[in-house]
């Protein structure tokens, strides 16, 4: 087939064969769209609506009010869930980027190419343990009789076991462990796409190794960092399991407060309003980072 004939063939597919076949192609997108509409967009719209209702005796009172939102912003035990969550997510994101960047950098620039792939697959292998099981495994590692405390006391560095479990630090550690894998991947994918010619050119013009990194490599790898950081923030702030298992009940994060509203208080409108606040926080994060989030550039 010549190029010309192929093009004609394509034109024929779109224009000259309307009746019999094209209907099938035209209809194909409808079932998945219907599913997402019925079980994603409509339920979320419904959740928005219910968040403006209140709980009444024996059910819900569908009178429009912003009471729930007012409570979230004024009652300290509810507001703390939100501020704690934002703090933990920001700390996690910052530490994860700092830990992951050198891993990605060494993998991309210092390790021979044939090893890169193997090491990368190894680096994300623990990603596939269930996140629940991974958090549980950390409680075992961090426990009073866990490996960390046993090692430290055998080295004579501590006389009494450190309290590591059920703290904010444990939650952050569990999160960082998970997101370092994710960020290594996005940053690595970005780094290997930067042409080495830029660095060679900078070196030829007399830039030191550090200048080369600071002025060339780092700015060019910003999209990879931001995509990973955004994903980290979003997944982190919506996660219930890690803070629940590793953080214990000492301080509540937003998803934990939401579950408490559902299970103990039985206040669905309040839980819905808090979920909306969670969504809004993520939306804010999106707009703050949007100019770097061209996913197709990765």
């Amino acid at each position, binding site marked *: 087939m010549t190029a010309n004939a192929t093009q004609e063939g*394509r034109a024929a*597919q779109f224009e000259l*064969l309307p009746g*019999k*076949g094209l209907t*099938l*192609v*035209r209809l*194909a*997108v*409808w*079932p*998945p*769209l219907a*599913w*997402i*509409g019925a*079980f*994603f*967009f409509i*339920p*979320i719209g419904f*959740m928005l609506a219910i968040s403006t209702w209140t709980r009444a005796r024996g059910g819900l009172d569908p009178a429009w009010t912003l009471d729930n939102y007012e409570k979230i912003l004024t009652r300290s035990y509810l507001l703390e869930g939100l501020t704690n969550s934002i703090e933990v997510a920001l700390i996690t994101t910052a530490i994860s980027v700092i830990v992951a960047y*050198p*891993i990605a*950098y060494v993998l991309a*620039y*210092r*390790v*021979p190419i044939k090893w890169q792939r193997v090491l990368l*697959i190894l680096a994300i*292998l*623990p990603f*596939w*343990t*269930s*996140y*629940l*099981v*991974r958090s*549980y495994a950390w409680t*075992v590692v961090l426990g009073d*009789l*866990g490996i960390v405390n*046993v090692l430290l006391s055998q080295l004579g560095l501590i006389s009494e076991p450190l309290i590591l479990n059920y703290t904010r630090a444990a939650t952050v550690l569990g999160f960082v*462990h998970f997101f370092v*894998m994710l960020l290594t991947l996005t940053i690595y994918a970005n780094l290997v796409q930067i042409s080495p010619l830029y660095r060679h050119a900078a070196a030829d013009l007399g830039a030191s190794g550090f200048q080369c990194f600071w002025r060339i490599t780092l700015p060019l790898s910003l999209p990879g960092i931001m995509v990973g950081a955004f994903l980290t923030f979003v*997944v982190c702030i*919506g*996660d219930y*399991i890690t803070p629940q*298992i590793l953080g214990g009940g000492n301080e509540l994060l937003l*998803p934990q407060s939401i579950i408490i509203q*559902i299970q103990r208080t039985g206040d*669905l409108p309040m*839980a*819905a309003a808090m*979920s909306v606040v969670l*969504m809004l926080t*993520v939306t804010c994060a999106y707009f703050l980072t949007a100019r770097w989030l061209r996913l197709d550039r990765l």
Partner: protein
Amino acid sequence: MKKLKPDLGILYLVLAYVFIFLPVVVLVMFSFTSRDLPLPPFEGPSLKWYARILSDQRMLQAMVNSILLAGISSLVATFLGFLGAYGVARHKTRWDGLIRYAMMAPITVSYLIIGMGLLVSFHALGLPKSLWVVGIGHVVLNLPICFAIILAGMGDHQRNIEQAAHDLGASDLQALLFVTLPVMRPSLFAAFCLSFTFSWDEFIIAFLLTRFEVTLPVLLFEMLRAGSNPLLNAAGSLVFLISICLVLAAVVLTMRQRRG
């Protein structure tokens, strides 16, 4: 820069890998302990905790629930994802951008939000919680992944094969069934495998939307409240093993397709 020289960078890499693998190694290692707690010193190896799983009725039931849930919801998600990708790739309209955006939308919110939406909706409609509702939620969260993977596998060269089938007199349905589907098999299988791992691992939607028929992650979470136990290590290691096998299958298949 070609050879691996031991220096600060490599040292950092080694430390990072120790950090990344520490919980997994501890998890798997202490699933073989013969003691009653998953703590050092390690004694064993013993398979008693794996044997315990096989004799634990609740655990087996939860595992069967999880496998059925993941299997059925991933099949549906793969099928719908294929339809979406097929429609978008083969029939250009001015709504394409919007359709793609709608298909990918569930990926932009937390699982918790998807679960909450379904929970309040089903509650308000007076419908009971069940594994089926969890399955509906799992299809929602896996559809974008299936759609993206299958769309990426629907290249132009495949369109040419379809065109050839048309030229030889095949109807659209015939071309779809006998040409497109067989050619797309690796992508479809990869999408299915990945969906399966996500659904099989998923906790919060299953936690919110089931009451009595629990999935494995929900059961493990309940067991966790009673404290650590090598049984959890053994169950966790099994979950890990199954996920890894599925992911490797998906990776091998997509790589083979890319080469072929």
